[in-house]
């Protein structure tokens, strides 16, 4: 602005007056626009709910959040936790998990196993949400459809214990050869491949839930895509589902156990995974339960919220690559790394997330043994951190491998915040204690899996979540035939023990086998335990009886009730 600005008060005053006029015009325009947009918002959201706030004692309704839009509510193909949580409320298998996490009767009122033959009796008053009775045919149809190669179900393998199921899923046998038959409307007969001791626990898995054939065919490939494209047989049913926005569940009047559900409405009005947003919604009294991160704990304590913790069942660990030519095949090198680190330090001083536990075994602490917890009956052997010994093992490893300097290794990890600090912890510890350089290869989930399967790593930070409540769900992870054994660890002795765990019917013999697997994994330093994941959450003071569990719905409101001031 080289020229002097021409200015006179008269002009400026007039201009300002004009500007104010425009501003008022703009405001009026904005108001009209907002009126129109409000209408549009109502149309795109559906009915958000008739009440405000987290709990409504009069209508027995609660508001919750979902971490994500449920990706797939088709029980035959569903694999994820969010869908599993919703399915846990609106569908039920022959058997299910109760509020204490024990197996109990669901649609079947009794069942018996005789060697490879299992028969289930379906209760007379079990009904679908359209009032039609649930029959044995609904189970036969669902199981065979899940096994049909054309369905492309990722969890079809969980049905492989049934006779000919695997062959049928691979297209080698027709589905009619699969060992499941509806003898009549109330009797389902299952023939197993071999006698197994944990079939009851498998049957509680969502893939084993019933689906009505007539309804499925009518839905024309869109089964479970919308609230009215699905039949329900759980204590609740979905009455409205606006994708990405809200999902409303109401009490199912046809559920056989009318006493069970004490709430009338569970309204998932918010779908987001942002933990700050969830905390803010909880503070504002809009949702009944919120998970807390470490930074939020102090404030939560000050506010005297009702806090609980819960282990979600998953175990995280560092896997080694045992493929030909990898340095990590050397036991002394693995031993050196194991002795250099300390998972308690990782959990308590690095990750610092509440409710996490250091992992000392592939088998988490909550697993049931014969009478007590598995880990009480078979304590996990440990190598306490020992830096001089770690260095000694490294020297031995270097001699055996013919190395002059400590090796440079690649550690694959995911790119989540926890995985990153975890990777950095190990990088630092190995550098400091062993003088070993570790290259962190942080990848998004899908790419990490691709690299794991291809064996493109020396170490990988991985984890495992259980499918059913039996140590076998962890124990077969390092079997030579298991595709999830991505480091390709091979040990005939371990394979033999896994076979015992799979086929033996004697609980003592099975648990002993699992105890031995735990010992082999320890002695052979097959993995370095990181942590068992836990969650700390706050609950609305009026809401009681919310169940968190490892199996079935991760969080279960079907037993919950609202306590009113008077009680």
């Amino acid at each position, binding site marked *: 602005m080289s020229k002097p600005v021409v200015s006179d008060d008269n*002009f400026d005053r007039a201009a300002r007056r004009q500007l104010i006029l425009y*501003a008022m015009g703009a405001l009026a325009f904005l108001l009209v626009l907002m009126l129109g*947009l409000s209408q549009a918002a109502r149309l795109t959201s559906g009915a958000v709910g008739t009440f405000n706030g987290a709990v409504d004692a009069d209508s027995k309704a609660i508001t919750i959040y979902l971490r994500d839009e449920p*990706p797939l509510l088709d029980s035959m193909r569903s694999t994820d936790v969010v869908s599993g949580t919703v399915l846990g409320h609106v569908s039920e298998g022959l058997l299910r998990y109760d509020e204490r996490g024990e197996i109990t009767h669901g649609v079947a009122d009794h069942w018996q196993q005789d060697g490879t033959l299992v028969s289930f009796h379906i209760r007379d008053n079990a009904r679908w949400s359209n009032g039609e009775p649930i029959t044995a045919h609904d189970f036969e149809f669902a199981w065979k459809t899940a096994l049909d190669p054309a369905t492309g179900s990722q969890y079809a393998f969980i049905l492989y214990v049934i006779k000919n199921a695997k062959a049928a899923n691979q297209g080698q046998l027709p589905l009619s050869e699969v060992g499941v038959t509806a003898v009549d409307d109330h009797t389902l007969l299952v023939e197993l491949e071999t006698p197994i001791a944990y079939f009851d626990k498998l049957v509680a898995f969502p893939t084993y839930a019933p689906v009505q054939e007539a309804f499925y065919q009518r839905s024309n490939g869109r089964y479970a895509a919308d609230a009215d494209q699905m039949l329900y047989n759980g204590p609740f049913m979905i009455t409205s589902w606006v994708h990405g926005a809200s999902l409303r569940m109401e009490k199912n009047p046809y559920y056989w156990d009318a006493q069970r559900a004490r709430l009338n409405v569970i309204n998932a009005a918010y779908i987001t995974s*942002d933990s700050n947003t969830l905390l803010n919604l909880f503070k504002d009294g809009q949702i009944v339960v919120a998970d807390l991160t470490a930074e939020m704990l102090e404030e939560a304590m000050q506010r005297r919220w009702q806090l609980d913790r819960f282990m979600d069942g998953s175990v995280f660990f560092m896997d080694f690559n045992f493929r030909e030519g990898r340095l990590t095949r050397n036991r002394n090198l693995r031993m050196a790394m194991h002795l250099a680190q300390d998972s308690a330090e990782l959990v308590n001083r690095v990750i610092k997330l509440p409710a996490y536990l250091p992992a000392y075994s592939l088998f988490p602490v909550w697993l049931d043994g014969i009478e007590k917890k598995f880990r009480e009956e078979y304590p996990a052997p440990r190598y306490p951190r020992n830096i001089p010994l770690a260095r000694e093992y490294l020297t031995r490893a270097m001699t055996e491998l013919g190395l002059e300097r400590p090796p440079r290794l690649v550690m694959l990890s995911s790119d989540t915040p926890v995985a990153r600090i975890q990777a950095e912890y190990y990088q630092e510890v190995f550098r400091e204690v062993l003088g070993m350089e570790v290259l962190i290869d942080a990848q998004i989930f899908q790419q990490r899996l691709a690299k794991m399967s291809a064996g493109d790593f020396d170490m990988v930070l991985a984890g495992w979540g259980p499918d059913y409540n039996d140590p076998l769900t962890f124990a077969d992870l390092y079997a030579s035939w298991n595709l999830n054994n991505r480091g390709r660890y091979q040990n005939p002795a371990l394979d033999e023990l896994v076979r015992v765990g799979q086929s033996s019917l004697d609980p003592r013999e099975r648990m002993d086998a699992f105890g031995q697997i735990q010992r082999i994994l320890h002695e052979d330093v097959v993995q370095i335990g990181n942590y068992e994941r836990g969650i700390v959450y706050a609950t609305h003071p009026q809401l009681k009886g919310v169940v968190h569990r490892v199996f079935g719905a991760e969080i279960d409101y079907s037993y919950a009730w609202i306590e009113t001031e008077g009680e």
Partner: protein
Amino acid sequence: MAAYLFKRLLQGVITVWFIATATFFAMHNVPGDPLSDQRAVSPAIRANLEARYGLDRPVHEQYLIYMGNMLKGDFGISFTQQNREVNDIIREHFPVSATLGILAITFAALGGILWGALTALYRNRLPDTVIMLLVILGISVPSFVFAALGQLALVNLNAFTGVSLLPVAGWGSISHMLLPALVLGLGTMAYLTRLMRSSMLEIINSDYVRTARAKGLPPARIFARHQLRNAILPVITVLGPAIAAITTGGFVVELVFAIPGLGRYFVQAVQQLDYTVIMGTTVFYGAFLVFMVILVDLLYSWIDPRVRLQ
């Protein structure tokens, strides 16, 4: 005019085709694929899945099939939400993003023009200094910070007053929209304010304004017809891309305020390598951007008769 429009539309189609092709091959060259899951699937199950999605064919064949379907307006079925067509996802979630985006862009445009004009009138005086300081803040602070701070302020305000003045998050009425739209539009508003201010100052010193004043035209008329109208032109130019950016760039705001918009699907699809959703949203947004740019050029000639389209 018609010939011009035809030429522009043709260019647009070629641009969109190019975007689709580049995205398709880039996406297929990323290691990993949408079918991998934590649990390794057996080769048999994997083959079933690949056959279901047509991933068992060579990439160039998949490309031809995809392009054929795209011309028919079929973007396929999502990999992560295996029951939903990409068309449904766009149809259900774009209106949400658009609704929020319209309010955000209105905030930004009206705010930017008015604040810009105001600062120009008060140049180098206190209101100008204060507003320009806020503008620098608005441009440099990313929207997720404003989103988090805004939400926190709202929670404290609600707690302080004891009533829920505005909802903290969610979707369904205008009250759900006010804060997210403001946060979403803030950056653009700040940018437009600065643009408007400098463009106003340039015109205040121009010859035709001096002539108009010398002729003795009423000041209000000079301000409105000669200054504002001409100063708005650069603002209109950036508005087109800004609209596209705001309706696509809402990922963070949509996540923080639990708004069921398309921005979330757009970003999550990339993280999950959901091939069909990546393609669908990218092509859709690409076409949208091209369309907005053409629209702005048309608008330009209407506002400023000096601009001729040919």
